[in-house]
């Protein structure tokens, strides 16, 4: 059994997929940085940023529904920004009371809340397009290109290689536990044991997973040594960037600079 659906990479033939991973990586970070630098309540710029990422989504042929659907994953955290609606000083819009409390919605508070929600929603779409259009090995090449040390990149690579194997093992452990989590016929028995016991069982499963990880890493090490590994992480040099990639990088950054300029009205 495999957890195919865990890998977010979606193969398509598209302009975005064929773009050099390093260019995509830098542009994604630049896009998110631009979004972060855009002041609160600069609605016109938000609209343009959203149009840009929507255009990139279209170019990637990943499907707008897919990207927007995944982007909804970022929403729960938005709750963390909810209080700001009521606490930021500013002209009051409305107020309502819950019990003894009176909550007043201030205009600047509401604007800041909506801005944060929009910013995080727009940013996560960019991250989704990057992850869904770039295979992980290419992302690792981009990491090396922006200066992530190769030892760290090597750890990332090994992790990725075994992620699916161990995620499968975790899934099978969960299944095995579910299979034995039954309910007795005798009435009046409390099902499920205590919370601490359940937590300990989950801990045992984590320990089991760790142990198998340890033992597997020993075997991996021996297999690596058998093929000449000596502790030094060696990597092939990065291929040069094509002229087209430079062009894409340059024009992408230029668009973002214009948007940022608009945000601050040069």
């Amino acid at each position: 059994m495999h957890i195919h659906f865990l890998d977010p990479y979606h193969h398509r033939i598209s302009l975005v997929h064929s773009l050099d991973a390093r260019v995509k990586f830098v542009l994604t970070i630049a896009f998110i940085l631009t979004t972060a630098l855009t002041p609160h309540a600069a609605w016109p710029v938000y609209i343009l940023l959203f149009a840009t990422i929507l255009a990139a989504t279209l170019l990637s042929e990943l499907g707008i529904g897919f990207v927007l659907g995944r982007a909804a994953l970022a929403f729960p955290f938005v709750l963390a920004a909810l209080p700001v609606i009521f606490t930021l000083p500013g002209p009051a819009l409305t107020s309502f009371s819950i019990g003894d409390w009176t909550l007043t919605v201030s205009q600047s508070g509401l604007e800041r809340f909506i801005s944060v929600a929009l910013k995080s929603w727009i940013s996560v779409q960019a991250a989704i397009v990057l992850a869904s259009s770039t295979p992980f090995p290419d992302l690792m090449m981009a990491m090396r290109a922006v200066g992530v040390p190769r030892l760290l990149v090597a750890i990332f690579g090994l992790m990725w290689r075994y992620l699916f194997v161990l995620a499968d093992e975790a899934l099978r452990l969960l299944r095995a536990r579910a299979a034995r989590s039954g309910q007795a016929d005798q009435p009046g028995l409390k099902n499920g044991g205590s919370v601490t016991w359940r937590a300990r069982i989950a801990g045992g499963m984590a320990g089991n997973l760790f142990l198998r990880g340890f033992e597997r890493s020993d075997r991996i090490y021996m297999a690596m040594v058998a093929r000449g590994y000596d502790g030094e992480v060696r990597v092939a040099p990065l291929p040069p960037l094509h002229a087209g990639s430079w062009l894409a990088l340059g024009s992408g950054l230029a668009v973002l600079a214009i948007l940022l300029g608009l945000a601050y009205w040069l």
Partner: protein
Amino acid sequence: MHHSIEVDDLYFAYPDGRKALQGVSLHIEPCEKVALVGPNGAGKSTLILHLNGILIGKGLICVAGLPVIKSNLGKVRARVGLVFQNPDDQLFSPTVYEDVAYGPLYQGLPPDEVQNRVSEALETVRMADYSRRVSHHLSVGEKKRIAIATVLSMKPEVLVLDEPTAGMDPRARRSLINLLRDLPITMLVSTHDMLMVRELFERMVIMDDGRIVADGQTEVIMKDEALLNAHGLEKP
């Protein structure tokens, strides 16, 4: 009297779209022992995971008279003992005792009852001396027996095993076969071990490509070499 296992027209597709079961129907009487064979990827494990509702497909399943639906899952899981192919997945507690006690403890049985269930289950698989041992260090054959004990302690009506003899040496396999023969409960066993099928099971079911392609007396089916070959099996 109800059937022990009743599966009617079961369809299931994995999230990636792979159609693993395409209209499976299977009825097993109480105390019947049935072998489930078929090539890799036939859908045997997928079918087995449906029997206690770990996967839920389209179609009707009743186990020990209970429909396998969301609201029944707890009761169904107490009645179906599912033994997974890899015992390491099943043994997640530090010691053998704790692992065998998981099912009864989860059901909230009183401590002395749990104790009895564990001793009885370990006795049945002839591993009574192992209760304080650490599961991790046991041999494959021993782990497999403990894995069976972890479900026997729930006193299931139906025992379902996924490839129980895979990776076992002849002696461990022999003692497992004897153990299965002596257990007086309904049994569905998925396996590639045709010798065991011939020896232990009067009835066998062949699956291929998500469908049941033969279901009948082992003696008869084993003679039909053309049928066996067509589904990647060999006459033992």
